[in-house]
């Protein structure tokens, strides 16, 4: 008899080890202490897609390198698509961060909802899946970025911004004749940090931090 192989999978982020190459949907639920197993929906995350696993369904752990499962209390599954690939989910909403993570979408891309006229899904938002029809989610090159300026979030176009444009975001009534604005930045493109002076422009990215201090010009 061959040695019992040791297989692992992830359930809700926790690694579970088993000697069985083939496990049932029920066994996966039981390994997470989900009792009774029939009260839970089990979702398997695969390559940029996800599907619901039935109680008696057999899963061959030899066929996938890093099987990952999520469980949801309830009895309904919700279907949607991400970049034209089919997804199933065990809750009526899915957070944007889960979509980024499980669909392996790069953070600089933005998510949009096809069915709502290309509405942008905020990075800290969520999509309601319980409505009519199947929600179609796509990722695309973002047209705007969210930066922090003097500790406040501002959404600005994704392009180069000048010293004056940044100062105006912090002080909408900025007076460049009378005042000098000292602008420092952190967490820029390629981790850029430093200060921005009159005549300079800088590329912006999501999460970039700007601070503007006003002083008089003599």
């Amino acid at each position, binding site marked *: 008899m061959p040695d019992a192989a040791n297989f692992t999978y992830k359930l809700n982020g926790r690694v579970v080890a088993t000697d069985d190459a083939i496990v049932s949907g029920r066994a996966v639920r039981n390994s997470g202490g989900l009792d009774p197993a029939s009260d839970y929906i089990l979702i398997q995350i695969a390559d940029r897609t996800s599907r619901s696993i039935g109680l008696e369904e057999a899963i061959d752990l030899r066929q996938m390198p890093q099987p990952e499962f999520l469980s949801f209390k309830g009895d309904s599954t919700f279907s949607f698509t991400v970049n034209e690939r089919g997804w199933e989910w065990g809750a009526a909403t899915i957070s944007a961060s889960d979509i980024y993570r499980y669909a392996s979408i790069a953070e600089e891309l933005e998510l949009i909802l096809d069915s709502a006229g290309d509405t942008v899904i905020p990075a800290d938002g969520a999509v309601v899946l319980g409505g009519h029809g199947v929600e179609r989610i796509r990722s695309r090159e973002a047209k705007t970025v969210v930066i922090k300026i*003097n500790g406040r979030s501002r959404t600005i176009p994704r392009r180069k911004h000048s010293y004056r444009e940044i100062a105006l975001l*912090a002080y909408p009534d900025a007076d460049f004749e009378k*005042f000098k604005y*000292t602008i420092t930045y*952190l967490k820029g493109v390629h981790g850029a940090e430093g200060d921005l002076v009159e005549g300079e422009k800088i590329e912006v990215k999501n999460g970039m*931090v700007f*601070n503007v201090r*006003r002083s*008089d010009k*003599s």
Partner: protein
Amino acid sequence: MMARVDCLATVFVEDIPEQLEDGVLYVSRQCHVALHNCACGCGEEVSTPLVATEYDFVMEDEGASIWPSIGNHDFPCGSHYIIKRGRIHWAGKMSREQIEAGRAYDRLLKRGAQPKGLGAILAWFKRLWIKFIS
């Protein structure tokens, strides 16, 4: 309203509120900045970026300290004070020379002294590199 305050209560936040309350120092570690309304009660918002070339912030049991001093020379109030352990220590109005000396030091910190010799060559490569990656 419009009352001068002699101490600041420190509040740690992730995002700074759009409207500040007088007498409160809002600190966002994530955004590397502290903001408060000028302690004289004039209503002007004072931004103190917490980065190496700007301000130092220290939190102690008694309250927050910010260094160097807050010099609101450009505000109509012309206030000048130090925030130390949550209290406002009023300082005299600075002379024009003092203000200029402070700013010259500030510029030196930010842009560094004019590079010479090997330093100048390294600086040139650094600029080229920054240009290349951006």
